């Protein structure tokens, strides 16, 4: 699986955000996306995730245009995680509930992911009462539980402590090996996540 970005251009109210961006990203790799504030990193991710429309250019999945089925294989983690008005457990389980009928396997999978991210102790807590780092971990668990093919993370470790960053790193590496997921991460933090990247793009 690959993701091709061809001559992508974005204008906001006649103001240029970026112009003619070309990128190729392949499954099983972790890509870093860096650039100055306002260079359009988040906008690029939002276009890939189908949350915004580009002005010109194309985003192709296996050299084909995106459709609804492809869109469901992509997930985007916002910089500020939004927690649903549910418990931590139900937040993480949610993407599975909208895809199929929940069975014992799904429940076990949710518990396992919670244990891996050190969230099990919060399983019955209301998700919006957690700390920023814990919310980011819930957001990651919720994003990867349905095994997306493309994971886009917008500064997932901003303002996080070392331990949380390490947990997120470990999880990304694990999923990478297991599912051959394409992961792209926007980061300003040069120290922590750099070792994860197979390739870094600058905007």
């Amino acid at each position, binding site marked *: 699986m690959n993701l091709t970005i061809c001559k992508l251009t974005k204008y906001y109210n006649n103001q240029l955000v970026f112009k003619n961006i070309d990128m190729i990203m392949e499954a099983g790799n972790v890509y870093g996306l860096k650039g100055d504030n306002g260079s359009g990193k988040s906008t690029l991710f939002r276009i890939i995730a189908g949350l915004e429309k580009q002005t010109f250019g194309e985003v192709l999945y296996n050299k084909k245009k995106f459709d609804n089925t492809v*869109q469901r294989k992509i*997930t*985007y983690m*916002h910089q500020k995680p*939004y927690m*649903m*008005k549910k418990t931590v457990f139900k937040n993480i389980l949610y*993407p599975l509930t*909208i*895809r199929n009928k929940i069975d014992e396997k799904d429940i076990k999978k949710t518990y396992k992911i919670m244990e891996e991210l050190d969230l099990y102790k919060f399983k019955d807590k209301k998700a919006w009462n957690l700390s920023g780092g814990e919310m980011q971990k819930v957001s990651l668990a919720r994003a990867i539980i349905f095994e997306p093919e493309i994971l886009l993370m917008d500064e997932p470790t901003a303002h996080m402590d070392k331990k949380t960053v390490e947990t997120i790193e470990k999880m990304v590496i694990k999923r990478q090996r297991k599912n051959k997921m394409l992961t792209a991460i926007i980061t300003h933090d040069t120290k922590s996540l750099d070792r994860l990247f197979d390739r870094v793009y600058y905007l």
Partner: protein
Amino acid sequence: MKYILEGFFEAFKLILSCDTEVYQIIGFSLLVSMTSTIISSIIGIPIGFFTGLHNFKFKDYYSRILFTMMGLPPVVIGLLVALFLARRGPLGSFQLMYTPIAMIIAQTILVTPIITGNIFNYTKEHGPIIYEVSKTLGCEFWQRVIFLFQEMRIIIFIGMAQGFGRAISEVGAIMIVGGNIKGHTRVMTTFIAMNNSMGNYGISIAMGIVLLTISFFLNTLMYRLIERDIK
């Protein structure tokens, strides 16, 4: 002061005496206000969601008009509805004037902007992120709609409760279009207004107590729900 205390005493006596007329008026008031709140919700919730989520030309003007409509005086609404429903009016042939339907129409016009405004305001602020999260988690169109409803259930309920509170407590519109006809269009507020002007303070206070109790229960329920979602 004595007549006020006597009024309160008489009020409690009336409430406990299970007076048929009193309970019939309470039941009818609840029925009219609930019906108009439900109709207003069916109209106002989708409009609030849609206009809150989307950017369109003149959105600023739209919100200003909407907020103005949230505070429309009930008598003005009553007058407008009466002009349309009166025998010589454009909808006069339906003979709806001085009927419960006319009262429901007037209250629906009164309540719809309140529900729409509440939903619109919240959706404008929080709707886009909720909608985006539902999309990035893989929700289909109808799942996104359900997701929005689930995440915004409290604000929907608050909007509905405020609308219902406004409907049950207003007197101007229903007095004009309903006419306060005994056993037909008489509701709690028109009953209070009429008895007050006749000097029957006891029965007016009794009805006032019932109105306050309904408002208290509604607010308690609202507070409990908000508290459950915050803590």
